[in-house]
């Protein structure tokens, strides 16, 4: 839109401020949680907070570089970045390092570790942005929609294979972008209902009740709007999908999520250690 890139008037300063504020809060949180009296200073490289500080500085420098780059450069680079991260995502499945149940890390020399899923997130965003901003691309077209969906789902599936359900779900928020560009609102509504039903099913642990309410609501809508054949049809299809989903929640929870991703009872282990210590 604005090709005349000026550093001072085209930057979302509020965003930069929020980013820096979050970094600062995180740094101090780590400092207070991991405090080691032998290394009291926040800049000490031996400690976790010292490392975090270095990472913050490095990322600010990198951020400045990226801001200074010509935007067309990023746009041109998007397919390359996307391809690179896809290769990394496949690589991590082969030589990956298993941490906390996720095979998501590639070990680098010097004790550092690389998590390709993180790069995949913005590589996907870049490519999607480039594709959607192309001429004659409308999400309402079946073809365009399929290509956009493929750009999103390909890395998503690879990440799910790592066992990293969290990073996988992050991609689903790209639905907002597609919606903004003309995707049918049904997708957004359906996703919202999926999330709500998933939480409710686990929380209430009563499938019959939830399905009963769903059926009740569907019948109500059909009764009230029975003239509107199209709406009745939509509600029927939607309700069927939702009921099928409710039945699959338990399976999803048990087989897709790893144990540590479920409600983790950290305190039980902690209490046990405490009671052992008590006698000293």
């Amino acid at each position, binding site marked *: 839109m604005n090709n005349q890139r000026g550093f001072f008037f085209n930057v979302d300063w509020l965003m930069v401020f929020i980013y820096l504020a979050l970094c600062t809060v995180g740094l101090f949180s780590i400092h207070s949680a991991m*405090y080691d009296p032998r290394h009291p200073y926040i800049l000490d490289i031996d400690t976790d907070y010292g490392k975090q500080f270095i990472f913050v500085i490095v990322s600010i420098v990198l951020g400045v570089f990226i801001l200074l780059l010509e935007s067309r450069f990023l746009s041109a680079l998007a397919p390359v970045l996307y391809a690179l991260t896809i290769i990394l995502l496949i690589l991590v499945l082969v030589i990956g390092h298993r941490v906390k149940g996720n095979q998501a890390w590639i070990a680098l020399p010097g004790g550092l570790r690389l998590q390709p899923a993180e790069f995949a997130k913005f590589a996907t965003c870049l490519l999607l942005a480039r594709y959607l901003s192309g001429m004659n691309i409308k999400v309402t077209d079946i073809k365009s929609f399929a290509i956009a969906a493929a750009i999103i789902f390909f890395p998503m599936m690879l990440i799910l294979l790592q066992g990293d359900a969290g990073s996988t779900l992050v991609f689903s928020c790209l639905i907002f972008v597609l*919606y*903004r560009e003309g995707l049918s609102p049904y997708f957004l509504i359906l996703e919202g209902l999926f999330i709500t039903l998933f939480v409710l099913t686990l929380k209430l642990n009563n499938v019959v009740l939830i399905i009963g309410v769903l059926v009740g609501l569907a019948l109500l809508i059909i009764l009230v709007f029975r003239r509107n054949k199209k709406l009745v049809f939509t509600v029927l299809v939607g309700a069927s999908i939702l009921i099928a989903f409710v039945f699959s929640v338990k399976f999803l929870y048990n087989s897709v999520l790893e144990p540590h991703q479920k409600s983790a009872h950290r305190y039980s282990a902690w209490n046990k250690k405490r009671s*052992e*210590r*008590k*006698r*000293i």
Partner: protein
Amino acid sequence: MNKFFERRYVIGGVFITIILILLARLFYIQIIDDKYLLYANKNVIRPLIQFPDRGPILDRNGKILVQNNLVYDISVTPKDVKPFDTLEFCKLIGIDKAELDKQFQKAIKYGRSVQSPFEKQLSPQLYASLQERLSEFPGFSVLPHSVRTYPDSTAAQFLGYILEVDDKIIKSSGGYYHPGDYIGFTGVEKAYENVLRGQRGVTNMMVDSRGIQKGSYANGAYDTVAVPGERLTSSLDINIQKLGEKLMQNKVGSVVAIEPSTGEILAFVSSPTYDPNLMVGRERGNNAAKLYDDPYSPFLVRPIQAYYRPGSSFKPLSALIALQEGIITPYTTYNCPGYYWAGNRKISCYNHEAHGTVNLSSAVALSCNGYFSMVFEKIMNASGRKNIEPVYTNWRDSVIKFGLSSRLGLDMPNERPGRLYTAANYDKIYHPGGWRSSTIISLAIGQGEVDATPLQLANIECTIANHGFYYTPHLIKSIGTRNITRVDDTVKHNVGISAQNFEPVIDGMQAVVDRGTAAASKIPGIVMCGKTGTADNSHGKPNSVFVAFAPRDHPRIAIAVVVENAGQGANWAAPIASYLVEKYLTGTISRPQDEFNRIMNANLLPDLSQYVIKNKKKAQQDSLKKSRLDSARKVGPVKSASNKKDPSAKYLAVYKPKENE
């Protein structure tokens, strides 16, 4: 700008909704829900428990039976440890290098900057040599800790022992006990756990994220002080207790002495015994394992858990009931030819000795089986030979009033009730109406289907000494400075025999010691009334039994002695009882030392091949719970009786008494 421009507001709305939900949740966690506040407090404040000293237990004259001793627990903080002379350190605290490495690794695993236990319960001697060199071993620290100690190594089964609580106890205590606490497991320690344990105190310490103490919380405003356990004065007399243990060494059996006027237990000997100090300290586990494996079961509390047939010591009781029923008078006589015919069963007197014409007193004095068989048949056939059931039930009721066949209610755990068959039991073995007085004639002389604990035997003597009543036996005189007795302990239990009926029986019992079967155990200057018993059992020699009380006027001690498989009551049980009685009444033993030593040094341990029965293995597996198992289960005859499915029960009922004294 495309036609979907307005959709940005929908997206904005979605995000605002999500943020509002998160804010509501945050509000709930921070302001309304205090769960995380509690977690945080637990993180910072660590309650340190101050352990109270367990109360000591004294004998009736204030001598210490058990008190607390300081031992020293070594702890280590791995972070502070500097290289040190490991060999020297091992030598000082008496462990080997492998053990040191193991403990040290364990401590490191626990946390480098946390103080972890390293070696427990060092003796004061070891500590003394370590103390002066402790500065050479930075990172190690020593904490005093009190354990039980028994200065006279006596009354092990009476006092019982304490053990670290296990998970089951912790659960069932509803949060009172914590891992590492000790609890009375047997004996007085268990019975009076609530007063002995004292009250724990709590000091609230602030700790940092690594568990390092940073000082007292709120200047100790929420701390409580530990209250030491109360001092328990038991009724035991340490002098006769020790004498009893000495005399019973290398013998299996039991001695119980009771003060008739109060019901207080004076001696409580279970033999073989063990040194209670073995159950304390670093070697406890090994020592306990050895004791469990001992075929003579030193952990069995024989005075209240072993079943013995009373044998002839039952005769005074038999006579009392007959007198009360009016079946006989003191002048009823019987001409003893050396045996008695009950139906077609011949009951012989001891050594087939013909006692000639005997009356009640002389029959007791000479232990004439014939006389008492005659009396028993008279009672049982009072309403006709075929109508025995109600008569028997009536007779049994009279007997159990003396405390037989039910728990006396001693303030000690795991007392066993003893046994006397009911008419229904006999109906089951034979068929209703299928048994006669001759069938159960063994009961006349304390054989057959009657089993009593030594405590019950001693309690019968209390009742005779008191002319018709007893107090529930108990073993604690006072708690702290309070003279306490349970309500039960001051209630006279009347046995329903008129006082005047006791005199002829007591005459006979005096004659037993003066010139009868136990004449060899007469104590100069003391009138003791007693009764010997030679109780048959199915494995080896008969049990030697003697029951007595003394002096005759204003009795001060009632006693029951059982020496398993030792032979005649007069030979072993009677002298042992007489020494205890003399010591208790006069403070010394005046009779010849040689004879005393002969009794003391005699080894009467039963032959193991007969003593250890087939289910020994099973009994051993039960380990600690074994104390609840009866010795009788191992001692054979009772076992089959307590188990109704056992086919030998029938055989038992017709058990044929051999010669009795």
